[in-house]
């Protein structure tokens, strides 16, 4: 079985290498290779997971003195679940891309990028130590750079790619420091070894969490994620559903043994604030993908908050109270369900965009339900799932989180519940403006359903979105994760259920009633102040960062450059050279050509020598 795991890891790399080296001009072949690889990955992933064998293997990759980095696989239930999610959702996205990117000139590069993305993500999933995880972590950043900047001739795409990578690097700054610190504090970065013994430290988990902040786009590094919508839509799906952003949450779950309450507290609040902030931002968006992007942010906030909420006391078999890592369970559960419905939503939006000839503004759509029925139906399922309509996937996972919050921190619970209202609000807004009403543009009027490659993933994912919430249907092999999901019982169950329903109803009703099918935003018309405030809130980070980059960082750099040119290279070096040159001129001027003057030199010499002879001069 370990060979299979290695195979899963290597397959996409081979696919990427083959495409990069040989298939640069053969887009169709490249696409086929990539999709075949994805298929194989999904298949093997599922087989691996279901086979039930859990193992760890590693071999040394680098050694310098006592420092060694190993390349290893830790395949436990968590990894198995994540691998399945990545594989299956990834496959759907691959298939969808076949149709979506059919006419793209750089199709080979695109599919190569997808493969390298899969490779990087699987590497994170399988990594048995933090160094290896960091390596693939960075590779994920690189992959996202390639894919987001796929349409590099667009300035915005190029900028977005750059921004994504740099924001991730900022997070990795902490992540790497955390790893190094962890290495020296604990003597190891092997996840299993850390689980058995580690030093109690607040700094290490917080530093490591920085990585998750970057990758999972938590506040304050969330800015790259909405911009990342510049990439092709399937890429957005990939980034938002199964890979990249999920990596942050997954990583946290991997290292939850290192967590201490103080760190968890920070993590919890970060997630909570992110969830609320993103939801508020989402309301003002008119780009279909941007809305989804903010919703992703919001949902990631949920997951991170869930993780940060930490453990619940629980009775074990022998009747003792033990701490159950409920945060991990809730986060992973939500991650899984979210992967399904968010992929569905993005692919659905891709289908819409594809149908509308790359129109992304929801105010220029409308009435697509009739023209794209399959997309409409699947998209609706997705929306229902995300807003937590009972008995769909999102309902269960969100309830688990709300319950955890209710149990551990009421304030967080309140915020998350309010966020859920907003979620319902903006999703309904999106849904209504896109599919209902009448077409508000030519593109929308002439929209059409895509081919089989576009629709079949939608159907598959819609099915998952319905089913993924039922923990019972999962095989026993994932019990390591699913046993950790907090479940409400008794009165708590009632409260949570009621709350869910309440927020759902409020959100949906508000959304449905507030927004009318029209070319302008109803909220903006009815309450410009609120709308403006939300827009300003949304922009605040970008404004601040842009100000920092353009006005502070860049100016500081220019100042340093100026100082270097003027002072170091100019005044000091050229000045020194000039002074020496002046001495040179002076020395040259001493050669007056006059014999008498020259004799004075001799006199001078004799006087100095005389001084030495008399002992007046000495050293």
């Amino acid at each position, binding site marked *: 079985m370990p060979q299979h795991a290695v195979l899963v890891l290597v397959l996409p790399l081979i696919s990427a290498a083959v495409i990069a080296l040989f298939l640069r001009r053969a887009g169709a072949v490249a696409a086929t290779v990539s999709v075949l690889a994805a298929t194989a990955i999904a298949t093997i992933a599922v087989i691996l997971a279901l086979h039930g064998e859990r193992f760890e293997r590693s071999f040394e990759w680098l050694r310098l003195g006592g420092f060694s980095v190993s390349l290893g696989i830790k395949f436990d239930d968590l990894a198995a679940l994540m691998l399945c999610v990545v594989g299956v959702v990834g496959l759907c996205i691959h298939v969808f891309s076949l149709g979506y990117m059919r006419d793209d000139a750089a199709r080979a590069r695109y599919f190569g990028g997808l493969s390298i993305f899969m490779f990087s993500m699987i590497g994170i999933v399988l990594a048995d130590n933090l160094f290896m995880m960091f390596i693939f972590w960075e590779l994920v950043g690189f992959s996202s750079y390639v894919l987001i900047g796929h349409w590099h001739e667009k300035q915005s795409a190029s900028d977005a790619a750059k921004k994504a990578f740099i924001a991730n690097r900022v997070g990795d700054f902490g992540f790497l420091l955390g790893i190094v610190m962890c290495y020296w504090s604990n003597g190891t970065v092997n996840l299993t070894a850390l689980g058995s013994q580690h030093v109690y430290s607040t700094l290490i988990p917080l530093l490591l969490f920085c990585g998750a902040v970057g990758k999972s786009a938590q506040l304050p590094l969330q800015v790259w994620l909405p911009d990342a919508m510049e990439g092709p839509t399937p890429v957005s799906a990939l980034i938002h559903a199964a890979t990249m952003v999920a990596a942050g949450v997954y990583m946290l779950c991997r290292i939850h043994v290192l967590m201490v309450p103080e760190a968890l507290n920070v993590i919890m609040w970060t997630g909570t604030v992110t969830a609320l902030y993103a939801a508020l931002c989402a309301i003002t968006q008119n780009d279909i993908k941007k809305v989804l992007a903010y919703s992703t942010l919001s949902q990631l906030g949920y997951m991170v908050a869930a993780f940060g909420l930490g453990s619940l006391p629980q009775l074990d078999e022998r009747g003792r109270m033990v701490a159950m890592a409920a945060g991990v369970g809730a986060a992973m559960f939500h991650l899984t369900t979210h992967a399904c419905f968010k992929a569905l939503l993005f692919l659905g939006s891709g289908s819409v965009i594809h149908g509308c000839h790359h129109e992304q503004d929801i105010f220029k759509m409308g009435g697509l339900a009739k023209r794209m029925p399959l997309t409409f139906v699947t998209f609706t399922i997705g929306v229902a799932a995300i807003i937590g309509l009972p008995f769909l996937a999102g309902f269960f996972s969100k309830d688990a989180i709300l319950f955890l919050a209710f149990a551990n921190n009421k304030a967080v619970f309140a915020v998350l519940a309010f966020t859920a209202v907003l979620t319902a609000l903006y999703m309904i807004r999106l849904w209504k403006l896109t599919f209902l009403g009448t077409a508000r543009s030519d593109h929308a009027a002439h929209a059409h359903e895509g081919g089989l490659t576009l629709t079949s993933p939608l159907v598959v994912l819609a099915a998952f979105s319905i089913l993924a919430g039922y923990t019972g249907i999962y095989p026993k092999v994932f019990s390591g994760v699913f046993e950790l999901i907090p479940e409400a019982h008794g009165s708590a169950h009632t409260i949570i259920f009621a709350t869910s329903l309440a927020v759902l109803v409020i959100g949906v009703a508000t959304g449905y009633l507030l927004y009318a099918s029209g070319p302008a935003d109803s909220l903006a018309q009815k309450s410009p102040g609120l709308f403006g405030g939300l827009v300003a809130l949304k922009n605040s980070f970008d404004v601040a960062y842009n100000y920092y980059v353009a006005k502070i960082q860049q100016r500081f750099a220019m100042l340093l450059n100026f100082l270097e040119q003027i002072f170091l290279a100019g005044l000091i070096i050229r000045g020194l050279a000039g002074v020496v040159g002046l001495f040179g001129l002076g020395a*040259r*001027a001493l*050669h*007056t*050509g*006059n*014999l*008498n003057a020259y*004799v*004075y030199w001799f*006199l001078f010499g004799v006087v100095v020598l005389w001084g030495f002879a008399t002992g007046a001069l000495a050293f």
Partner: protein
Amino acid sequence: MIHATLHAYVALSAALFAIGLLGVLIRRNTLVVFMCLELMLVASTLGLVAFSRFNGTDDGNVFVFFILTVAAAEVAVGLAIIVALFRKRQTIQVDELNTLKH
């Protein structure tokens, strides 16, 4: 009355030498400069002869022979150069002989 001691001779020789040096320093006529140089050589010979006499060794005196010969040769060559230069430049003033400078 200064006694004709060794020290007196040495001092005299040194004084002659110094006068010669001063002449080389301040005179602008190359011929006179030349004379002052000769004066310096003569000062040395005086010292040599004095030392030779007082120390009771005679190789100092022999050395004077060589010095006189050398001085004569030097003067011959020097004057030849001065004459040739005068023919070229119509001057033997030190401060006008400065085409070579800087």
